[in-house]
């Protein structure tokens, strides 16, 4: 993985830059010791590491603005970082950069139940947003697997999804407004507690822009009342194809579950071993969850089990209690961790049209044999967002490279069948060079033009999202 050559002139000015940052931040909020900055050398994509020059941890919008003004004046690249859980290398630093961490921006600023929103600082973790409103029976819907740790700032940067977005949408559908600081240090309010923008949908543009257009310091988020109840049903099949067909039939039937999750045998076994979720040992397992009152749940599950039975499942089991439901979800949410216990892995995130599910799963099996690397599949089947986990051995020479090659093949396949490179993790550095498989040069150029407008000097997270060759002439030397 190439990173741009560090600018030695910037590194030579390190002490001067540190002094300027210390003038606007408390001492503890400026980290520049070579050992201490090492803690920020990578994010969730730990195969790639590079310690930054400096890390700053501002605690207010004003401090963020002051930091960005200095970095802008000094021409220093800035890498925004939420909680550092990105699986795409979105927060991977360069050695001449300032990492701007959001960890001290964790306050709840306002909750409003009559208008159903919460305003928080962007470093607050996803789950603690729900935590702030659950005493009133409300929740924040997007629920990435990393929700215990991941920050709203990162959720907005990557437009994160989660298991329940089939019904509730992803981050962009639940984001009402942001306070954002531009690279020049100007503070903008975009959107708010009301719906829809007056002019261009800049809020929609910023969400998912991977920290390249501005640094979001506050977010206004839609909150919803919790459903009266929720219940998952486990449906096991002896073939991935049949499981895929069952998903399609459930959706066509007009009942829209809140989640349809898919796991294949390697993942089922790993999750079972890890947390004893009570999963059957089958080729493909669906977790289908519905919500509502007791009678509503019964009505929906009757319909779903009817459809499932037509596909001759080998296991069909409704959760009998709240504990059992929690255990079922625990297995799914721990799936990545469970696979990590077995082996190093690379997690892909391509999305495909649901109709292509059986074909793509078949092709992945063939590629797995061809490259000699095992694959586990766990994903959001309702929306076609796949998560193939390619297992490799980090200590074995060349294994990571083989894994990367195979990953690229799978992602190209996703694009070929009408899908995309990434459904919810973001491009980061991981899929940067594959952008040309999905987009023409002109499609990419217009996106670069958007960044030109927001960040003319190309200082914000500049080495991400687009192939370096496409951004060479724009990035600071």
């Amino acid at each position, binding site marked *: 993985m190439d990173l741009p050559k560090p600018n030695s002139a910037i590194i030579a000015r390190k002490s001067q830059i540190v002094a300027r940052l210390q003038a606007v931040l408390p001492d503890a909020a400026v980290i520049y010791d070579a050992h201490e900055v090492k803690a920020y050398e990578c994010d969730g994509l730990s195969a790639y590491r590079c310690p930054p020059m400096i890390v700053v941890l501002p605690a207010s919008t004003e401090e963020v603005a002051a930091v960005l003004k200095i970095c802008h004046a000094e021409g220093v690249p800035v890498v925004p970082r939420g909680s550092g859980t990105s699986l795409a290398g979105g927060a991977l630093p360069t050695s001449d950069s300032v990492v701007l961490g959001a960890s001290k921006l964790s306050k709840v600023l306002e909750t409003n139940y009559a208008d159903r929103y919460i305003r928080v600082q962007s470093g607050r973790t996803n789950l603690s947003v729900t935590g702030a409103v659950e005493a009133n029976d409300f929740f924040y819907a997007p629920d990435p697997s990393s929700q215990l740790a991941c920050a709203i700032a990162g959720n907005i940067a990557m437009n994160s999804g989660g298991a329940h977005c089939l019904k509730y949408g992803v981050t962009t559908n639940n984001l009402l407004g942001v306070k954002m600081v531009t690279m020049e240090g100007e503070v903008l309010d975009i959107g708010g507690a009301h719906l829809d923008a*007056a002019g261009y*949908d800049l809020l929609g543009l910023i969400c998912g822009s991977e920290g390249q257009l501005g640094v979001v310091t506050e977010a206004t988020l839609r909150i919803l009342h919790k459903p009266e109840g929720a219940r998952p049903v486990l449906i096991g099949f002896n073939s991935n194809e049949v499981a895929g067909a069952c998903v399609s039939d459930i959706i066509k039937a007009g009942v829209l579950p809140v989640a349809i999750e898919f796991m294949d045998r390697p993942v089922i076994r790993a999750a079972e071993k890890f947390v004893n979720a009570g999963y059957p040992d089958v080729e493909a397992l669906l977790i289908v969850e519905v919500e509502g009152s007791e009678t509503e749940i019964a009505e929906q599950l009757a319909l779903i089990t009817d459809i499932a039975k037509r596909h001759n499942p080998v296991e069909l089991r409704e959760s009998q209690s709240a504990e059992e439901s929690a255990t079922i979800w625990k297995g799914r949410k721990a799936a990545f961790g469970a696979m990590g216990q077995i082996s190093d892995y690379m997690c892909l995130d391509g999305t495909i049209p649901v109709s292509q599910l059986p074909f793509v799963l078949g092709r992945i099996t063939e590629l797995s044999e061809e490259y000699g690397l095992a694959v586990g599949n766990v994903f959001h089947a309702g929306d*076609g967002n796949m998560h193939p986990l390619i297992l490799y051995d980090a200590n074995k020479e060349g294994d990571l490279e083989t894994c990367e090659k195979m990953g690229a093949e799978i992602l190209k396949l996703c694009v070929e069948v009408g*899908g995309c490179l990434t459904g919810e993790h973001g*491009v980061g550095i991981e899929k940067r060079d594959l952008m040309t498989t999905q987009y*023409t040069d002109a499609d990419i150029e217009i996106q670069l033009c958007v960044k030109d407008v927001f960040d003319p000097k190309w200082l914000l997270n500049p080495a991400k999202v687009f192939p370096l060759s496409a951004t060479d002439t724009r990035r600071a030397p």
Partner: protein
Amino acid sequence: MNPTTESELAEVIASTKSPLRIIGGDTRRIGHPVDGAPLHTSGLSGITLYEPGALTLVAKAGTPLAEIETALASENQRLPFEPSDMRGLYGATGQSTIGGVVATNASGPRRIQAGACRDSVIGVRFVDGQGQILKNGGRVMKNVTGYDLVKLMTGSFGTLGVLSEISFKVLPAPEASATVMIEGQSSAEAIASMSVALGSPFDVNGAAHVVGKTVIRVEGLEGSVKYRAAELVKKLGGSVVDFDWVTVRDLTDFANRAGDIWRFSVKPSDGPKLGAALCKTGALDVQFDWGGGLVWALAPEGSNLRTVLGDIGGNATLVRASEASANLSVFHPEPKAIEFLNAGLRAKFDPRNILNTGRMG
């Protein structure tokens, strides 16, 4: 000009020397007319892909909305965002096109639960102001590959590019629908009731206060709808009635009345205050949708109702304008820094400033 292919559309735009006025079905005539040679999109017509099992539909921009709704209905599906039919309001007789729906981000009562048009659009193809064919997004409902220009294009009123093809996430049509109606409420009481309903677990997907009636809608499976409607009646009073939501969606009560029409988006609890201030300032009538957050006002021609918004957060759009209001801006003025970004984007997407020039500042 009425190109029939995307490449013809690109040629027309690349070779034009003068500004273009983009026309789908000419049924959503927001604000004041703009100058320019008419460029019709109705020649770019037809559904190019429909996969009910994947909840996905792709259509060329000039496809009539009615054609899309019919195709979806045949599979018991629908567009989630309940697009309005504005013909009554504007006295138009044409066929609304899907491109016009997207260009104006036309979103009806269900917006509060199912999202706006911008939340259902998952991919666009368009031609920019230099005649380049571009795409963004695709045909899958989860896609974070690169910047989300789909959102930027939706609701940009043809000022950043001319849409040629659009992909949508669609939803199953519900088995049943029920409306709880409460009569005789003031707007403050109505908005309080709607707030309770929208803050309940009953998945309300319509909440409006029109012509003195508060209406609250639930949809879904038969048994579930019955249950939730009954629970809402228990909480709020009122009764379950037959109600045609088209009257809310299309603002039919304003359609045949003279005057300018303003549209305010505010946080719902500000609705009553705004509504009262609008009436005091000369509004002839007001209606509330989106739980009180969408306020429609009918006003004498030329009256500047935007000033009423004052320091209430939100925005005001002059949706139906008369000659007397020619000096009033249609879209809400943005803070300078944001207007600077908007102008920057326009200059990149349409450097010659030929697409619906002046429509959005």
